[in-house]
């Protein structure tokens, strides 16, 4: 190979952004078209630096907006390259129009989304508003809880989305600042091992195949559009989970690190459980263990794959639980939180439905403390003891002023 390899220690101290940038280097991305935005900037900056220092054979395309960034990625992916970029928040919002193009065109792009709040008021810190904004866009969405996850899930994302049976773009989410800028120990793969796991890019319907000319991005009206969307949804619903589970298994064989669609923690005999995403999962796990010492059988469900939503797996994880709380880190805009909605749907047809309430927390990077979670588990246990929900269905955690609750 014409480019240089990098010697890595078995464990490096990396933040989530650098871990993702290293993964992009090791996957040898052909094209990154990017526009910088806090807190995701160091990912594409890292790729550009590795490229300039001859660690990658590829192209870095500087564009004038995030809309152009994803458009450039779409063009490069349609041409037949391995393509990735990164964004956050307002940039993600500007990308939304093109996200639907990428998934409808069945182009395997990996987008690292470093989750950040949406203005107004302007805010650069982490919440899940941008992640929620992408949930109907037809992409596969992975959620990392730590820098290690941000590193590993990039390799997994390429393996899944580039498969010719899948061909759907993939987002890898990590929490802004809490993951992206917090350095932790990350177990690394050597360059060769990492690249071999992902493998050479295998083009499909690429525009650079001159013997088989194709037109990408065609128009369909009422005569064909529905069939295309049906096909895309069918593939999301039936093909993606088996492929993800296969790749998770291969990754475990290679590294010993096991990922699951739904990450269950102490759920086997739990009475009460919280369902959450991102860095909150690790906080909740710590508190759940402490609650067990106090006699409350607490568990945690972390959602690793947000789209496709693991509807059946969630129901399976929660079927014997007595009281469940969902933790949504996005302003619900006039209804229940997304997780409350999805979890309620997945549990509705269970024989014994757990009691369910929803919490809104951490908007604009407000901390979710262990004290908040102790209070939450205590409240869930009180519901179990009373045999009914004793609080409003929706409560805000950690907001100043009079207690805020609804429904």
């Amino acid at each position, binding site marked *: 190979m014409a480019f240089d390899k990098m010697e890595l220690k078995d464990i490096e101290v990396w933040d989530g952004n650098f871990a993702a940038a290293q993964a992009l280097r090791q996957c040898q991305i052909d094209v990154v078209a990017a526009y910088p935005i806090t807190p995701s900037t160091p990912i594409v900056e890292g790729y550009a630096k590795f490229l300039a220092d001859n660690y990658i054979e590829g192209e870095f395309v500087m564009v004038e907006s995030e809309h152009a960034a994803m458009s450039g990625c779409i063009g490069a992916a349609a041409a037949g390259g391995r393509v990735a970029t990164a964004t956050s928040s307002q940039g993600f919002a500007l990308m939304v129009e093109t996200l639907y193009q990428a998934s*409808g*065109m*069945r*182009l395997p792009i990996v987008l690292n989304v470093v989750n950040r709040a949406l203005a107004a008021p302007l805010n650069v810190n982490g919440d899940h508003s941008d992640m929620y904004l992408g949930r109907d866009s037809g992409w596969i969405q992975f959620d990392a809880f730590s820098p290690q996850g941000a590193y590993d899930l990039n390799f997994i994302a390429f393996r899944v989305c580039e498969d010719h049976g899948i*061909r759907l773009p993939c987002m890898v989410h990590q929490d802004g600042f809490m993951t992206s800028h917090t350095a932790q120990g990350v177990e690394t793969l050597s360059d060769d091992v990492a690249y071999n796991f992902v493998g050479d890019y295998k083009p499909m*319907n690429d525009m650079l195949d001159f*013997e*088989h*000319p*194709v*037109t*990408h*991005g*065609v128009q*369909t009206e009422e005569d064909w559009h*529905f*069939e*295309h969307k*049906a*096909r*895309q949804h*069918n*593939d999301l619903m039936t093909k993606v989970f088996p492929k993800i589970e296969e790749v998770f298994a291969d990754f475990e064989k290679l590294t010993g690190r096991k990922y699951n669609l739904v990450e269950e923690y102490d759920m086997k005999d739990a009475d009460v459980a919280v369902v959450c995403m991102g860095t909150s999962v690790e906080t909740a796990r710590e508190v759940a263990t402490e609650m067990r010492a106090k006699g409350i059988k607490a568990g945690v469900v972390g959602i690793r794959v947000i789209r496709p939503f693991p509807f059946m797996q969630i129901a399976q994880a929660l079927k014997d639980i007595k009281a469940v709380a969902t933790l949504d880190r996005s302003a619900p805009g006039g209804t229940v939180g997304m997780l409350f909605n999805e979890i309620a749907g997945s549990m509705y047809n269970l024989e014994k439905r757990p009691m369910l309430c929803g919490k809104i927390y951490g908007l604009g990077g407000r901390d979710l403390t262990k004290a908040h979670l102790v209070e939450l588990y205590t409240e869930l246990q009180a519901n179990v003891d009373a045999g009914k929900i004793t609080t409003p269905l929706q409560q805000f955690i950690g907001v100043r002023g009079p207690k805020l609750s609804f429904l």
Partner: protein
Amino acid sequence: MANKGWDEFEIGAMLRSFDGSIDDIAGTAQVDRTYSPSSSYTASVADWRLVKPVFNKDYCIDCQFCWIYCPDVSIIARDKKMIGVDMDHCKGCGICVEVCPTNPKSLLMFPEQAEEEAEIASWPAKDEEK
């Protein structure tokens, strides 16, 4: 195209210009190419047009400006000689007329229903002021 179900076509918002592989397509004249049914070459969009270009070969100098500028590849030329306009794909934009350098012009726009032979017979004379 057949009325296929959701599971019966290739994935992606993508159409193939040819069924199977092609060879030396640049050296094959458009009329001799075996376009697939999904190629726009086989579909007429003549009804998009309200005004049409009429070609008068008496004044044409085969400069190829119209061929170069046509945004829909609707000028038919062979061996660098202008032959006419592909009326199945021309949208009537008038760019060919705009770029035509002859005096009088070799292409002029007329209403869609105009008779081509009659218009050529009454073609404008050379503009002496130009």
